[in-house]
């Protein structure tokens, strides 16, 4: 197996991509409606539930699922495990796309989007008590860092083409970028560590409203541990998916050991979570078997199932087991985020929330757009590595 990445090639417009284009267009139409008619007309959000699907899914869960780049970078660059290098490029690309989608979702979600530029610019007005300020600045910077991390992919391609301004520019920039890359990669690990833990911190202040099975001073710690596991799960899933679709060799052994890391992280997460709840004398809330207790048990069981599947001997060799475990892990991590942000958040009597058709359409549209850009880049630029198998000629 060679670890040199190459473009997959092939046609971009297929029936499948057309399907995603339609979804993206529907989302686009609803986005237009949101900007013309306002948030009330297009969403189910209210003064009781000021944050809805877009924050819980597109931003919080979406960026967590986009942490493949972060998780793989830790293994490949910090722990210096060269065998993970083939996974870096596709992981960083999905991260860049996932974070960009989250950024777009935020612009759609906030009411006074024309003031967003003031957050990075009005340094004199920064409120350093605000966890959201930290998240906003970190996410903005990280989107840049991710595109810089992935930029060699495009520049290599331009350089190969050999002529034009882009080729000359790429030839000049690539060696410089190569030199400063360790500092950018370090930033690419620091920033998610900061804001992914802070996404947990955001609900620390909601203690009068957040259910006690979810509210704990350890929220930032629980968020950062679970995000690393989710990042690995996404890499396992994505590597399998692209090896199938593009009929390339699958890195089963590498993915098996990544799954193993995920399993151990998940067990650490579960241990901290349950010990914390027990020490705070809140175990009784679990065994009240009301909706919240059952939801907590479902979350716990999901994490545990993911760990058990990924830790077993079978997960080393069987792609199906790896994908199963990864899906369980993604589900568990997403459920944890949805629960904290929406289900366990209780603004008081009389309020309820379920995402409107418009909110769902915009979320689906954004995911569709993300898939389309991924497919385009993978087909045109050197992102995936591994020799295509004999039948891969489409």
């Amino acid at each position: 197996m060679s670890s040199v990445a190459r473009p997959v090639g092939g046609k971009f417009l297929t029936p499948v991509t057309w399907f995603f284009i339609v979804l993206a267009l529907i989302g686009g139409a609803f986005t237009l409606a949101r900007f013309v008619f306002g948030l009330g007309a297009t969403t189910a959000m209210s003064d009781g539930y000021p944050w809805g699907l877009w924050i819980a899914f597109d931003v919080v869960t979406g960026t967590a699922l986009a942490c493949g780049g972060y998780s793989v970078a830790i293994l490949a660059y910090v722990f210096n495990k060269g065998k993970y290098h083939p996974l870096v490029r596709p992981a960083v690309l999905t991260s860049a796309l996932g974070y960009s989608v989250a950024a777009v979702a935020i612009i759609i979600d906030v009411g006074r989007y024309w003031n967003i530029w003031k957050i990075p610019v009005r340094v004199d007005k920064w409120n350093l008590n605000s966890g959201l300020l930290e998240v906003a600045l970190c996410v903005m910077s990280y989107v840049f860092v991710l595109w810089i991390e992935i930029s060699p992919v495009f520049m290599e391609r331009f350089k190969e083409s050999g002529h034009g301004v882009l080729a000359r520019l790429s030839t000049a920039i690539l060696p410089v970028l190569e030199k400063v890359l360790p500092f950018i990669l370090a930033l690419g690990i620091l920033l998610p560590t900061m804001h992914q833990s802070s996404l947990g911190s955001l609900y620390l202040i909601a203690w009068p409203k957040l259910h006690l099975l979810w509210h704990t001073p350890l929220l930032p710690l629980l968020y950062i541990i679970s995000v690393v596991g989710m990042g690995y799960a996404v890499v396992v899933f994505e590597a399998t998916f692209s090896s199938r679709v593009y009929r390339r060799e699958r890195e089963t052994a590498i993915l098996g050991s990544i799954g193993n890391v995920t399993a151990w992280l998940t067990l650490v997460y579960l241990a901290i979570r349950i010990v914390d709840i027990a020490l705070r004398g809140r175990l009784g809330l679990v065994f009240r078997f009301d909706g919240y207790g059952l939801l907590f048990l479902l979350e716990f069981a999901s994490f545990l199932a993911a760990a058990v599947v990924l830790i077993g001997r079978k997960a080393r060799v069987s792609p199906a087991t790896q994908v199963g475990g990864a899906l369980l892990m993604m589900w568990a991590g997403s459920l944890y985020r949805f629960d904290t942000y929406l289900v366990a958040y209780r603004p008081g009597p009389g309020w309820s929330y379920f995402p409107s058709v418009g909110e769902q359409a915009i979320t689906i549209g954004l995911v569709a757009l993300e898939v389309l850009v991924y497919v385009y880049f993978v087909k045109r630029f050197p992102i995936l590595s591994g020799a295509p198998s004999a039948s891969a000629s489409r």
Partner: protein
Amino acid sequence: MTVTRRSALKVIAGAGAACAATALPAPAEGRERRKPGPDDVGLLYDATLCVGCRACVRKCKEANGLPPDRRELQGAVYDAPDDLNAQTKNIIRLHVEGNTTSYVKGGCMHCTDPACVSVCMVGALHKSKGGIVAYDKDLCVGCRYCQLACPFNVPKFEWAKAFPLIVKCELCRDRKEGPACAEVCPRGAIEYGKVTALREEARRRLAAEPKKYNGKVYGESEVGGTHVMYLAAVPFEKLGLPQLPSEPVPELSETISHGIYKGFIAPVVLWSALAVTIWRNRKKGAEGEEKP
């Protein structure tokens, strides 16, 4: 896969060290409890004096240029808001239980240590002159974190508008005569003044007529104190005022994040350590990488 297992633990140690260090914040590092300043102003609402005439609701709308919240009932139109909302910064609710009735005012509590101000990214919501929690629309991004953080569900958002604002009571801070609600109340149920003086007045009323009241001043200790305070005959929780401890809402979150990010030392150290490690690893060449 012992190496990976060890790696996993190292990852946690590295990524979570900062969080873990502050997971149990030392009391000494806790932030200071705030007190109302000597010139801070507020309201004292006495539910036992209120007759529910809603003159304050009407006057509030007039003073703040807020449109009526139109309700149609059997062909007639009323300005009848059912809660605080984008057109209503002040409301009078009715509580009935058996033979006892009580009215209760709703609106911004102007906390001494407000959650909305703690979370607002660029200070669109901020403490202004007189301890008033004020709103600057030019800085507001419309993220609505204030709504999430407020334990009283006070800040409201103009959901119906394409160019929305956050709407909340600012104690008529640009009005010479002071808050319109206090000015117009025919029963003196809403008193405007310095917070310290209002607290004394509340205590005086409790002592003078202990039988008339439930014995407490709501807003004296709740979430570290509020500048809008309540007296009532009925227990406050029955009037829909949430039972809250004396801990200011932002205390926990600010203690934890200032612990993690103290002097921005932890992030800088982590970044330097990562950069050095990555740089050295690259010189060394990665383990297990196949040479092409």
